[in-house]
């Protein structure tokens, strides 16, 4: 068998964005626009696939001049924020969409899994869907016949195999779909965030299956936001940012760089001069630091759910003799408020002050957080609000034996629990 590889050479992809429509405030303007609308709409729709004017404001470079190579047996992780171009890259590699310029050369049979269960139809039975999904992924019916029992056994839905899929739980549907995909025998596998679904036990089996695949010398391209999955699977990583490839290297190196870039501003911010610092005429921030286990600044370190954290805020107060307190609001990256903690209220003079908030271990769930700080005068008047004073990410602690399914809940406390035999 000849060597399998992927060669991506100066790959670029353009997309057309929607542009805000002009508004008309007169009847005449509106009528005129309505008459011209078909022509305008036509140009707009045509523009979806036509890029004569590449500098137009509505043109987005989803990928720009990306080059890399993947060799046989390599498991390449692709990391990057949403919108960085990961999905576009996978779409081009899977031939769903064609590049605007540049080229890709792939040697070997490719199977891409951008979604589990493509082609599933709810009215069809599990059996029919296995064939449907398998053929759409490029298998022949003979190949499916051969692997049918294995697929069914892996999915664990034997009893329901002749029941319409609409009667399945969503977890069962995912299990069945992944089983089909896992039993394809491609030389190159392209996988997008498909592990985000299914229960922990099944995820573990999928991960095991994917490891098998890579150990058999097959090439895998893996996109995920789950850094632990990337870390445990990939031998090499590339990082995408705004459509460009910004880093190509060892998994740990790329992941650490990505995590440090992900937090805007980071978990340690020190302002040398008050003029640069956030605040106003009354209050200015001097530093905002998240400490890991009370003493180590967390900058450049991973914070885990079982780490004790200390938030430290130092600020300059410019107004003499005020009664003030600090109110800290902890938000997730999506903007949900997790909690609001306030300090005691006390008279403070001019000068530098420091406030510390101690957060016990096993409270915060794994997530990306940012802190808003309110400075409150006389317990009622906000004299200064500093949004996103500091931000940080809490990671899931490496768990023994269990797999890393997302732990649900706003917080993840570890309360006293008992569990014992009561009687026979």
């Amino acid at each position: 068998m000849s060597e399998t590889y992927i060669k991506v050479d100066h790959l670029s992809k353009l997309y057309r964005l929607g542009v805000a429509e002009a508004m008309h405030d007169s009847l005449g303007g509106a009528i005129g626009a309505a008459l011209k609308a078909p022509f305008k709409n036509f140009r707009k729709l045509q523009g979806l696939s036509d890029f004569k004017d590449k500098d137009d404001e509505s043109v987005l470079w989803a990928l720009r001049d990306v080059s890399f190579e993947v060799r046989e047996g390599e498991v390449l992780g692709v990391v990057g924020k949403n919108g960085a171009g990961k999905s576009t890259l996978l779409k081009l590699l899977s031939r769903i969409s064609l590049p605007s310029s540049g080229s890709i050369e792939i040697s070997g049979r490719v199977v891409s899994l951008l979604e589990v269960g493509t082609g599933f139809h709810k009215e069809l039975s599990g059996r029919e869907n296995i064939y449907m999904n398998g053929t759409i992924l490029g298998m022949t019916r003979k190949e499916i016949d051969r692997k049918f029992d294995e697929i069914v056994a892996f999915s664990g839905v034997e009893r329901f195999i002749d029941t319409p899929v609409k009667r399945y739980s969503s977890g069962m549907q995912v299990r069945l779909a992944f089983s089909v995909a896992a039993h394809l025998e491609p030389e190159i596998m392209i996988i997008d965030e498909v592990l985000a679904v299914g229960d922990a036990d099944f995820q573990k089996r999928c991960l095991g299956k994917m490891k098998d695949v890579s150990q058999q010398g097959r090439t895998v391209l893996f996109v995920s936001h789950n850094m632990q999955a990337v870390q445990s699977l990939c031998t090499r990583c590339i990082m995408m940012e705004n459509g460009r490839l910004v880093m190509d290297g060892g998994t740990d190196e790329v992941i650490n760089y990505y995590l440090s870039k992900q937090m805007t501003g980071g978990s340690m911010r020190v302002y040398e001069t008050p003029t640069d610092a956030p605040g106003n005429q009354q209050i200015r921030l001097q530093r905002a630091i998240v400490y890991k286990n009370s003493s180590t600044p967390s900058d450049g370190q991973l914070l885990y759910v079982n780490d004790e954290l200390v938030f430290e805020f130092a600020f300059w107060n410019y107004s003499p003799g005020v009664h003030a307190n600090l109110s800290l609001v902890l938000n997730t990256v999506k903007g949900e408020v997790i909690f609001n903690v306030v300090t005691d209220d006390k008279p403070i003079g001019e000068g530098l002050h420091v406030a510390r908030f101690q957060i016990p271990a096993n409270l915060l769930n794994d997530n990306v957080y940012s802190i808003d700080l309110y400075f409150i005068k006389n317990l009622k008047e906000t004299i200064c609000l500093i949004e996103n004073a500091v931000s940080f990410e809490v990671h899931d602690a490496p768990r023994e034996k269990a797999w890393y399914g997302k732990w649900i809940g706003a917080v993840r406390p570890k309360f006293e629990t008992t569990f014992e035999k009561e009687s026979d």
Partner: protein
Amino acid sequence: MITKINPRKGWHFFTVEDFKELLQYKDLLYMLVGREISVLYKQTVFGFAWAIFRPLVQMVIFTFIFGKLVNMQSMIGTDVPYAVFSFTALVPWTYFAVALNSSTGSLIGNQQFFTKVYFPRMIIPITPIISKLLDFAIAFIILLVMLFAYGIVPNYQIVFLPLLVLLMMMTALGMSLWLSALAIQYRDVSQFMQFFAQLLMYAAPVIWPITLVPQGYRFVYGFYPMAGVIEGFRASLIGQSAMPWDMIGAGFITATILMITGVLYFRSRENVFADVV
């Protein structure tokens, strides 16, 4: 196997490689056709009876309006009952209309496939062209029963029927390749189809006899392939007229042109389907 992925511009022809690839995916086509057939009548009370109702109800309406009220019967010029006259045309017509309509909308309705996985896109519009043949076959059996009931015996010309079925499939596919590829980017096509299908029906000799078209114009009229298909059906099944070979020949010319240009257009557009949905 080495795959090269490059930007594609301009016209793209259907090569031998493309055909080989299409063959490689023939199991997918079987599956999609099977899926369409088995899903269509699931959770319906009447099931496959629906395949018969549509042309049957249309026949009853047409027989009442055109057979009784308008007295089209006198224009037919023969003693063939209007019900038989119209149903013979409605069986191929219903296939054509239904296949064209669902094939035209097929890309829009199956976006979840081609935005997630690669396979020859042409399989999607081809699927309804094949799957609707089942409805056609069922309706055709009813037609035979009806002919038998009226004591009409088809003559030897019935051997040409497969040729007419081929012509009707080619026409539906050729038009669908154009329309489905257009519809995915310009949804106006779906609006347009609503009255376009009606227009096509009145333009075909479904409710009126071909005798309304002067003999000298028949060949030119035959460039509308469904005219030849319908007249051919009447000639072979009712057996009171000769096969209109001039019209069928003209129809094949149109259908072939539609197919070739349709494939060309489809192939040239398919690379942007996933980008324009």
